[in-house]
């Protein structure tokens, strides 16, 4: 597969998925992306990262590897994490949103360990806190 074309979206935050087609309606990618882009700016957390791109992986067979990588040339920080397929398939709408929110937060913890991010500044703790507060406001996760 080749993805060498240039897409239009140049938002600070992008959320996409590799998901079994029947489970696709359960993912609310647009909600995540619009919420993050509306309330947060990536430049508040890093001077070198221009876009943070997160991918939910919800597949049962031929599951791709998780990716945690920073592309210096484009300023893209890519993070993809695997969701528990069976659990997500059985989850209701509220549970599905919670799983997505929790996985997204989990992904933030990988940022300092991502390939190409060592010794590069990114205030991931502040990013984590801000994102978590947003998700709590939306009711996607419970406040501790």
């Amino acid at each position, binding site marked *: 597969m080749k993805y060498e074309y240039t897409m239009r979206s140049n938002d600070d935050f992008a959320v*996409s998925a590799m998901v079994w087609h029947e489970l696709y309606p359960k993912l609310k990618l647009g909600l995540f992306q619009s919420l993050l882009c509306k309330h947060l700016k990536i430049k508040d957390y890093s001077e070198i990262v221009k876009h943070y791109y997160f991918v939910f992986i919800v597949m049962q067979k031929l599951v791709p590897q998780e*990716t945690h990588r920073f592309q210096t040339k484009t300023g893209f920080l890519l993070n993809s994490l695997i969701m528990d397929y069976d659990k997500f398939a059985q989850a209701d709408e509220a549970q599905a949103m919670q799983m997505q929110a929790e996985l997204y937060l989990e992904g933030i913890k990988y940022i300092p360990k991502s390939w190409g991010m060592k010794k590069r500044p990114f205030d991931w703790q502040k990013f984590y806190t801000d994102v978590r507060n947003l998700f709590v406001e939306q009711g996607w996760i419970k406040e501790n």
Partner: protein
Amino acid sequence: MVLEKIYIEQKPLQPPKPPSKDWFRIILLVFAVFALIFAALYFSEVVEKDEHGNYRLKSERKEKFEADSLKMTEECQQYALVAKVSGIYPCFSCPDRDSIFLNEGEIWKYGVTCNGEKRRYGNKMPTQDLVYLPQYTGSLLECSIMETRKIIEYPLLPENLNRKPADRLARPAGNPYDK
């Protein structure tokens, strides 16, 4: 005052000669000959004699057959790339333009990926505005049939029929060929 008319003898304009295609044809021919030479297999490369003097296939040739056969049975995945957001997307199947408007959820491309490409496949994330949706898992042959069928039947999808006649596509925007 009489102005002297100056006649400048001009030769009639000759139509420009088309560039000679002979050199180009010769280069193409040489290339084709070399391609045939290197692609051709000689009998002696694939067959040997056993201890009794009978002909048999060389082990490398047998291994290639087994590898190719195995590849046809390995588990693969037929997938669709769909638009995550409504907007303009590159169009490789449009005869007269290079982009097209897609609504959220509409198909951009059908494809197939196999276990053997897992490493590369794992690093190839969808672009920001596309979602990767596996639709079928099976052998390479089965997935290839599924992929081809979906590309061929794409023109009849409601999302395509709902477009203005001039905007309807023969294949998904991301599939320039039937395969």
